[in-house]
């Protein structure tokens, strides 16, 4: 009798758990799947039966986007802005996080708190100083201006992730390297960086995705078509071709897919690292 009661309870708990999991997956994944699916449908299909599968699979619309519009340029701009800023900031933040994690010096906690406080300042409130700075540097309407701004965007969160990544590496390894004869930079490069791979991947991916999808500063700092990133191009595209849903969804898919693929490839590392940091996504 008692055992039966426990079994029923267990089954119900399981069922509830699965319900929650499926529910969350559906509401988060369905829009993405719907966008990608719609890219393969005709305008009529999208309007007539929005939930149905496409009747045929054709990549013509993607080819059209790349051939007849400036999409390769937008794609390259996005890749440049997100890629270069991620690489540069990863290097700088990894070095700062390493020092914050491994060395004791006066003001260490204060510096860390100052880094963290930037999490609380909304990006929009920094618009004016950033705009002036970029103007003064002569980088207005240049993808490099956008890249420079992106370098600073993910700072607090990345330092958070990287610092805990470096803190997880036992200090005795640094000491062993010191005794083996490695100096500061060599200990950082040859011992700590390879061992903080998970944290570096996580911080890198989160930064890349953030910058890849960033709209506000890209729209503020660029005007000419040749300097646009994908999200900006998409906004223009939406207003310009609002009647052509197939093309619109194909363009959307081009923006979404790299991020999804990148995350899928590194999700294990990202999850482990985020769990270790205690940061919520």
């Amino acid at each position, binding site marked *: 009798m008692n055992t039966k009661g426990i079994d029923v309870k267990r089954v119900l708990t399981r069922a509830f758990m699965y319900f929650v999991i499926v529910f969350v997956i559906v509401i988060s994944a369905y829009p993405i799947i719907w966008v990608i699916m719609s890219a393969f449908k005709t305008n009529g299909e999208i309007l007539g039966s929005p939930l149905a599968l496409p009747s045929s699979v054709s990549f013509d619309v993607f080819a059209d986007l790349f051939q007849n519009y400036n999409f390769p340029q937008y794609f390259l701009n996005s890749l440049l802005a997100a890629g270069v800023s991620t690489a540069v900031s990863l290097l700088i933040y990894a070095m700062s996080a390493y020092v914050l994690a491994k060395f004791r010096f006066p003001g260490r906690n204060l510096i860390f708190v100052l880094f963290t406080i930037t999490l609380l300042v909304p990006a929009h409130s920094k618009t004016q100083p950033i705009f002036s700075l970029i103007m003064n540097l002569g980088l207005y309407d240049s993808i490099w201006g956008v890249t420079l701004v992106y370098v600073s965007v993910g700072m607090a969160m990345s330092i958070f992730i990287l610092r805990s990544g470096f803190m997880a590496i*036992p200090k*005795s*390894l640094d*000491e*062993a*390297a*010191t*005794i*083996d*004869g*490695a100096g500061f930079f*060599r200990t950082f490069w040859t*011992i700590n960086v*390879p*061992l903080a791979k998970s944290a570096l991947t996580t911080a890198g991916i989160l930064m890349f995705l953030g910058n890849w999808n960033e709209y506000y500063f890209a729209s503020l700092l660029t005007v000419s078509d040749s300097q646009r990133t994908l999200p900006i191009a998409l906004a223009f595209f939406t207003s310009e071709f609002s009647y052509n849903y197939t093309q619109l969804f194909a363009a959307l898919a081009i923006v979404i897919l790299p991020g999804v693929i990148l995350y899928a490839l590194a999700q294990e590392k990202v999850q482990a690292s985020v769990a270790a940091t205690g940061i919520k996504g």
Partner: protein
Amino acid sequence: MASISLRNIEKTYDNKVTVIKDLNLEIADKEFIVLVGPSGCGKSTTLRMIAGLESITAGDLFIGDKRMNDVAPKDRDIAMVFQNYALYPHMTVYRNMAYALELRRVPKAEIRAKVEEVAKVLELTKFLDRKPKELSGGQRQRVALGRAMVRDPAVFLLDEPLSNLDAKLRTEMRAQISALHRRLETTFVYVTHDQTEAMTMGDRIVVMRDGVIHQVDTPQNLFDRPDNIFVAGFIGSPQMNFIDATVERAEGGYELVGVLGRLPIANERLADYVGKQVVVGVRPEDIMEASECPDAPAAAVTEASVDLSELMGSEVYVYFTAAERRIIARISSRLDIRAGDTVRLVPDLSALHVFDMETERAICHGLDA
């Protein structure tokens, strides 16, 4: 030449907490010295100061005849084995061992020859391509030793290297490290909290507590002639029994009168203590069943009821209470003593230790006479 000399060494953290106080120690070339003491006694800090991983607040450290206070660890000609091995997890065993030589820009062929030679000695040849996580605890420990050996350092520093191993492996590795010391003929400084390791491996042992050296001596002398109550209690297992007693003058010398009866002792150092209280130390193995010791004076025999007996194989630990003090005796298991039995016990009078109650320093030892 790699003698080590620590002169008036002090270590203070943040100008507040002093963990090492006026430490003086001379370690001879090729000596195997063991620093032992309870947690927080400053033994690891001392080792880390020799390594250069901790700065020295005051005093001088010499390795050979060179003052090393401000010399970088890599230039001290030392190698260190860490408690958790500190092997680089992303490198193979080969690279772990070769790393220090690579940093010194030793030619590749020479590195290979050296690593292979050391790997052969430590029976690691077939593991050279593996990563540390693919090795057992004992193998990792050998890699850590190998990493130190390839450099041919003048001094080996070992910080509790066996504490992560199980009991059987620890015994094996203990013998291996001792053999290694004989083979390499280099100065070894070894930190442990385990007195068995200290007693079995060290040429000399440094017993520390609260940042102060309590005694530096050979294992035998530490055991037979401890300088104070702390050393007497720290070395030996089970711990030495301590009993309060009053010194009285008697025929042919003195008597220590306490819960173990009247214990005659002829040592003139007790002259100043007549009528005063002292602490008498008796090791459990020096308390015998009276039948085993027919010549013992009747006044030195104590009758006691056994609270607990623990059979350890060839011997039995007998616990009994005398004047509210728990006393342990190590007695041959042939006597078949069990809890509740009444036993007649007598201490070996030639193996008593007498300590000053106030200063806790040794006054005399039974072996002195």
